[in-house]
């Protein structure tokens, strides 16, 4: 199986308020179709690692490869393009654009990528919404749907450009067990049926135990 994401000797320091070595020689990779979760105590640097992997944080040492292409040191414009095309995000808080409709929220990254016509994008977006059983909400304002629904909209948005990997920062952290279960099942399905790679930071042991692989972190290092 090909490697989607690979980190080599990643080191990260927080300079304020005092110099602090957050991540120490992180090396690991995520293969295609792999459902990986990262666990660890608060403050062990797992979220920091995720944001480095997401290309949003560029202030680190080491090398990062996406689809075997070195992306460390590329300019921000190109990184934005990479995020748009290859990486889908799901956050703990739903982070939808509250003034746009659900459908528009899902379509926006594809519009930005502009590889397809508007009709195709709209069709795709409706497909994703249908897949997540929220197509009936498509015309509603994003601020008017419930928490669990919002998270599913966020997943649909993460999927719209058919990314290489989906990253989640505690995507179920803010949901009740029923909705959390629901979100997990969606991820599982995507991983198994569509061969999508997933990298999820979580506190939830039940959630993690059901994934293909658990990366345990502690004090800025990978333990297992």
């Amino acid at each position, binding site marked *: 199986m090909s490697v989607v994401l690979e980190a080599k000797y990643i080191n990260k320091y927080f300079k304020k308020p005092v110099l602090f070595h957050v991540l120490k020689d992180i090396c690991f990779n995520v293969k295609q179709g792999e459902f990986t979760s990262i666990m660890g105590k608060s403050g062990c640097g797992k979220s920091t690692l995720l944001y480095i992997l997401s290309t949003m944080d560029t202030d680190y040492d080491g090398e990062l490869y996406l689809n075997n292409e070195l992306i460390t040191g590329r300019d921000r414009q190109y990184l934005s393009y990479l995020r748009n095309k290859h990486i889908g*995000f799901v956050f703990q808080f739903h982070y939808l654009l509250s003034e746009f409709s659900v459908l528009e929220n899902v379509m926006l990254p594809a519009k930005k990528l502009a590889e397809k016509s508007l009709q195709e994008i709209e069709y795709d977006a409706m497909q994703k919404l249908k897949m997540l059983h929220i197509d009936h909400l498509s015309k509603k304002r994003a601020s008017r749907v419930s928490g669990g629904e919002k998270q599913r909209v966020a997943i649909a948005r993460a999927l719209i450009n058919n990314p290489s990997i989906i990253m989640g920062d505690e995507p179920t952290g803010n949901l009740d067990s029923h909705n959390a279960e629901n979100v997990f099942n969606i991820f599982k399905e995507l991983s198994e049926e569509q061969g999508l790679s997933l990298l999820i930071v979580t506190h939830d042991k039940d959630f993690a135990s059901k994934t293909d692989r658990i990366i345990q972190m502690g004090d800025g290092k990978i333990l297992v």
Partner: protein
Amino acid sequence: MINWKVILHIAKTHLLTKIKQTAIASLGVTFGIGSYITLVCFMTGLNGMLDDLILNQTPHVHIYNEIEPSKIQPVSVFNNLENSFNIVHSIKPKLSQKKIHNAIPIIDYLNSNSNVRGALPQIKTQIFYIAGSIELGGNLTGINPIDEARLFNMGDYIVEGSAEDLYNTDNSILLGIGIANKMALKIGDRVSVSPINGGNFPLKIVGFYQSGIADLDDIQSFANIKTVQRILGKANNYITDINVKLHDIEHAVPLAKNIEQQFNLKAIDIKTANAQFETGTTIRNLITYAVSITLLIVAGFGIYNILNMLIYEKMNDIAILKATGFSGRDVQLIFMSQAMIIGFVGGILGLLIGFGLASLIGTVPFQTEALPTVETYPINMNPLFFVIGFSFAMFSTFLAGYLPSKKAKKIDPVRIIRGQ
């Protein structure tokens, strides 16, 4: 690659969902630009009126024979007294003719100059208006009425009758309104005038003249050049003054100098004659611009403020947009285009409001003795003001949007996403 369609779509949605804020921001621009247009149209209109009050009637170069003492007294010419100390007491002006020598060839010469719009002859003389046994002193000026009306807007100061009437009627007079009131005369009456050296000439009144300066209207009257020549008993080349109007007022000073040297006459240019007036105009313009710029700057700060607030409110949106693949530049363009849309809409509305208010002021009655032909407040609707107003609306919203949008560009999405 910039995807304008998406950027504008997001900008539009932001603006429309916060329609109140958008409206307030646009109104800030609207009032700024609207009051700028109103103010500048009104003030330059008034300035123009004041300028016209003086400048329209004033020749750009006035040529005449000055009565003055000889600069070189005979004693200094006498060689034998060259190195001695002479004092001449009570020097009197030299007796010289009032008329301009060879006036008609000089006028022809001036008219052939391409800078000159027209050179008009005049005869200025003192007369008495005779009403029964009373003699009122006054000035009578001989003119070419049609040309005076054409070049010096004389028509604006004729309250009854017209320049054509004066031109067409033999032995006619255009009487100062002050004299007419004193002597209870009306159009069609006859008034007797008497030149200083005697005689009595009845002239028919064809109109009244009102300059707005009461002292002048009490003494000044106009007649055709030929009539005045006849009254004075002079030949038809008797001309005492030449008034020159130029295409460009800037040529007045060099032309006046040339004429003085070439013809040995006194030539006064408008700038020398109205030096204080020039200063007044400059200061009024300065005030106009100072006030307008203040208005525009205040409007600009309003926009800056509102966009700044908007960006603080939209921090989350900015973080999401960046996380989902919008670059910093895209985000900056989203907020810049919001600023420019506000500027555009506010600017256009401002122009309309300014136009409306200025037109309204233009209909307000304004009657003044000084300007008999002015009936409403003067408004100067120069298209240039509208261009300036609109450009400033765009420019100031650009600046006001640039700084906050630059901030939006630099926002670190990680910090916001993790901050929650």
